[in-house]
């Protein structure tokens, strides 16, 4: 099979596959040993990059900043050092008015570092908007096993654009938390089909939370990013009012809906059972024109 599934790759392999060959120049690379001071005290091994590789590169010759999270390392979680690298990168992108691409794979704040990661994510969200104000688009790519949850789900929603694969999930509370809260009858976290229909790329795209839904392979992800490397999405009154109206209409339209399939149908998917299996490209192409 020639396809290289994006979700199969580790953070550094993703970086390498997405940018122009050899163009990635890492900032604070592994030998710099910018590592968590918390984890060793809790008996947990550290990672040289604290689960986040950041740097500069080019896509189609255009310079960008980019970051990639390692989901295998403490769930891709965001601690003090991890968030500080992210904040620094975003500030650099705002300063240089360059696009910033975030390859997200994170369950959110790193609990082992308590409130320091929480504040770090809040700082990163401020920095995302600083980029947007500077006209430098921030693009979140969500297509990994872990997805973008918790604070990183919120941060992703603050970016100019979101590129998702059908494998990616975007949310705040994960299925296990919700199952604990609501009970297994309301949300069985082992029912992976339901989990993906609740937070997965296809549903997010249909509702307008993802700007692009691309196939789970690195070439498609790269192309999805490349298309969005133009102007940023400015935070204007008109844009905010339009979004307010859209989100209000969504809430009203689906107030009584509990099944994701009903949302799919309302958004132009004629046969949800069949469309479930479609790859992203086929799925998007098959949507009735009424869908966003």
């Amino acid at each position, binding site marked *: 099979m020639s396809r290289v599934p994006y979700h199969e790759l580790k953070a550094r392999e993703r970086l390498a596959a997405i940018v122009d060959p050899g163009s990635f120049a890492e*900032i*604070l690379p592994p030998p710099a040993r*910018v590592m968590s*001071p*918390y984890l060793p005290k*809790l008996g947990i091994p550290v990672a040289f990059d604290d689960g986040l590789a950041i740097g500069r590169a080019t896509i189609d010759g255009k310079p960008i*900043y980019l970051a990639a999270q390692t989901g295998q390392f403490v769930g891709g979680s965001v601690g*003090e050092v991890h968030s*500080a*690298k992210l*904040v*620094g*990168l975003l*500030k*650099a992108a705002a300063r*240089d008015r360059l696009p910033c691409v975030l390859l997200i794979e994170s369950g959110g*704040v790193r*609990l*082992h*570092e*308590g*409130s*320091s*990661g929480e*504040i*770090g*994510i*809040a*700082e990163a*969200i*401020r*920095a995302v*908007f600083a980029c947007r*104000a500077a006209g430098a688009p921030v693009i979140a790519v969500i297509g990994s096993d872990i997805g973008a949850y*918790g*604070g990183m*789900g*919120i941060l*992703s*929603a*603050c970016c100019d654009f979101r590129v998702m694969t059908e494998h990616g999930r975007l*949310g*705040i*509370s994960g299925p296990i938390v919700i199952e*604990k809260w*609501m009970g297994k009858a309301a*949300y069985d976290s082992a029912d992976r089909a339901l989990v993906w229909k*609740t*937070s997965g790329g296809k549903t997010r795209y249909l509702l*307008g*939370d993802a700007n692009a839904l691309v196939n789970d392979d690195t070439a498609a992800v790269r192309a999805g990013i490349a298309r969005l490397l133009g102007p940023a999405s400015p*935070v204007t009154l008109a844009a*905010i009012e339009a*979004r*307010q109206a859209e*989100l209000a209409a*969504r*809430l009203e339209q689906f107030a009584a809906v*509990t099944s*994701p399939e009903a949302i799919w149908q309302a958004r132009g998917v004629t046969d949800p059972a069949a469309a479930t299996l479609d790859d992203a490209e086929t799925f998007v192409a098959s949507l009735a024109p009424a869908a966003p």
Partner: protein
Amino acid sequence: MTTAELLPLLFGESAAGITVTDQILTGYATVAGQDVAVLGTADGTYINNAAALRLSAHVIEVVKTRPGLPIVMLVDSAGQEPNRTAEMLGLAGYFGHLLASLELARNQSHRLLTLATGKAIGGAFICYGMFADAIYALDSASVGLMPVEAMAAVTKIPVATLEELSKTLPALEFGAEPFALLGGVKEVWPTDASLPAKLAAALASATTEDDRARLGKERGGRTLAFDVQQRVLADSAR
């Protein structure tokens, strides 16, 4: 202290201009003679899609009808509502939109000031309160990622271990004071009659610079964040 008691303490009679519906606060008030817009949460409520949308609607109204009016955000929320339908309908998007609406206000010269009054936990704090120009907390507020017992349950690290470590690592401690050591809040205020004056002074001194990392370093609670940010900025400039 309940919301009904707290609002008059902060805003005096002008608290009457604040509506509390389903634990979501919206309205207008005055602080030491200065008009402000007020929004927030009450009684530790969980924030869902509709709540976030009501908060952003208020921000839009303020931006459109009261140019430059400072916005005071009160935080008493235990978190985002853990609910499957909320997630299915894109709760993260609603939170992102709330933050974007506040960014619009900031860009249009509205000062944003947060006071954590009760619970200020996790995603509920991130989705609006922590986005302010200046963030303060009452000494009685429950501020932080999560209480140590909850942290222990998720990380499988014993409570005793976490408590012992939190003596030297304030990030692991729950509460307004340790949060201030990390730079997450500027000051912790006692819940007394001095609040209106403090609030007025804070509004006057607020700037749009995010100085939390620097504060965290100066106060010794979050020692690495500022330096790492600066290193990235320096290395990327080469």
